[in-house]
């Protein structure tokens, strides 16, 4: 309970610092939104007027306070370029990216748990070496490359799945699923390969620990001993990696969205960068950063739940 409170407090502090860093980064550094909108040869008066309407002529501290206060109510401000409210736009896109990230993680876990455990249990046999080699090769493939390859095999050659695009779940669940299969696979298989290696090494470590031998000396057979005693212990380090990976997947979705032309957060982010629509960039980045921070804290708490040695502290 104390750990929970402490971590949550730390999360809040981190989030505030993060919002400040992101704000400072995108505001203090060169690049005046008014100049971006009007072009460099605009008149001074016009610029001043626009700055006033954006509020960028106020002191930075005031601007930050204003922006941060808005964030608390889910108000991300109004885009300098398109003049719409940013909050709802981010909201729409966030759902898409979440589906993608969760699907990717599901693929990764479903692939990595059995593959990693088997690779460890068979580490002296050819089958284990093959599993290790496959995961090693998988790590070397960037997600967007995996996406391109999957598109080639399943969309171009087989024509079985769409090469890109997105349909909202509410509109047509079947089409939604069909559009998400390839993106989730390309995110998930690569992360799965990474995860496999961590699962393998965690299980391998556990395999050589004394308590497994003690359990077998009590009459547990090899596999049940691994299942009952080994895996709960291997889960502890694997969980940490899993948390880190969820963050990676969330950000990696940015690239995969580009491959499959999916209107998610990443698409919005890249579009805003291209338009130099800094307030939107600021909004999306803070959402992603806070998401990563939350994931890290949740992992940390689960870690404490799983390991009694940490719990009693």
């Amino acid at each position, binding site marked *: 309970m104390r750990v929970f409170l402490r971590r949550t407090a730390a999360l809040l502090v*981190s989030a505030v*610092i*993060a919002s400040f860093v*992101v704000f400072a*980064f*995108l505001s203090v*550094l*060169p*690049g005046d939104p008014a100049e971006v909108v009007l072009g460099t040869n605009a008149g001074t008066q016009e610029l001043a007027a626009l700055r006033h309407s954006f509020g960028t002529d106020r002191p930075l501290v005031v601007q930050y306070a204003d922006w941060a206060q808005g964030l608390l109510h889910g108000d991300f401000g109004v885009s300098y370029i398109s003049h719409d409210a940013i909050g709802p736009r981010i909201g729409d896109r966030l759902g898409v990216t979440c589906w993608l990230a969760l699907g990717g993680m599901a693929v990764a876990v479903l692939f990595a748990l059995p593959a990693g455990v088997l690779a460890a249990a068979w580490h002296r046999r050819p089958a284990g070496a093959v599993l290790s080699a496959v995961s*090693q*090769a998988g*790590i*070397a*493939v*960037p*997600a*967007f*490359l995996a996406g*391109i*390859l999957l*598109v*080639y095999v399943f969309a*171009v050659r087989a024509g079985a799945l769409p090469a890109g695009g997105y349909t909202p779940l509410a509109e047509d669940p079947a089409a939604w699923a069909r559009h998400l299969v390839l993106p989730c696979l390309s995110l998930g298989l690569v992360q799965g390969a990474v995860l496999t290696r961590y699962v393998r090494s965690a299980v391998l470590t556990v395999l050589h620990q004394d308590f497994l031998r003690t359990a077998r000396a009590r009459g547990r057979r090899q596999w049940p001993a691994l299942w009952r005693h080994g895996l709960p212990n291997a889960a502890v380090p694997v969980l940490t990696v899993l948390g*880190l990976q969820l*963050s*990676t997947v969330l*950000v*990696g979705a*940015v*690239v995969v969205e*580009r*491959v499959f032309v999916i209107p998610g957060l990443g698409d919005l*982010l*890249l579009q*805003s*960068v291209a338009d*130099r629509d*800094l307030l939107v*960039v600021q909004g999306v*980045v803070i959402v*992603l*950063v806070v998401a*990563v*921070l939350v994931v*890290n804290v949740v992992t940390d708490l689960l870690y404490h739940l799983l390991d009694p040695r940490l719990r009693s502290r």
Partner: protein
Amino acid sequence: MPSSRTSPLPGRRGGTFIARRPALTAGGILVTLVLALALLSLLWTPYDPTHVDAAQRLLPPGGGHVLGTDQFGRDVASRLMTGARTTVFVGVVAVGFAVVIGVPMGLAAGMSGGPLSALLMRVSDFLLAFPALLLAIMLAAVYGTSTLTAMVAIGVASAPGFARVARAATLRVMAAEYVDAARLAGRTRTAIALRHVLPNIRDVVIVQASVAFATAVLAEAALSYLGLGTPPPTPSWGRMLLDSQELLFSRPELCLWPGLAVAAAVLGLNLLGDGLRDRFDPTLEGVR
């Protein structure tokens, strides 16, 4: 106390280096190949990698162009070689930056312990929330895209990894009795850092560098693919993938070459890292 642990397996004696260290050998070969291509491209490429020639568009492999040409009539093989240079350049600078920032921080935190150590862990935890890709996008939004922003982003994002690894290794060394012995021998803290800590954490840092380099190659490719890395016309593997993606229906092999190049470089670096880790593993020391 005398232990009667199961005695370690005798090391696999005999056999060639390749047979004994397959990961190290394969990784070494792949990495050397990429480095050699990058260096060679400084002196010579079959064609000018940026020369656009409408008459030479999309030539098949063979003939004058070993791997054919792309939709602008540029020689794919030459672009691949120059792309290796971009990759190596970005990787070396980014990892170098991360080492220079991260290792001294980790070393200082590990040796001093207490509040500084805790602060460093907080900072590195915090930096973990800013992956290379996000940093690069923020930098690109402000400064526009360039190789420099990509290198800085990747470097900053990799530094916490080095700090953590160096700190953990330093803590292990500082707990060793030989450090106590060195203090009793009258060594100063600086001397202990240089004579005992650095040599003993070197291996972990090298392994981490190899892993970070692989991550840098992946990040650089992703950034170029998103149009946030090295701007055209300078060839980069990620950009080549982006350009060839639209030809996936007609000329899929154009995607294959840069894809293979990225995968080979990353695979090589990861294998090298694994191989070095095994080689440096202190539990294997003295067995051989």
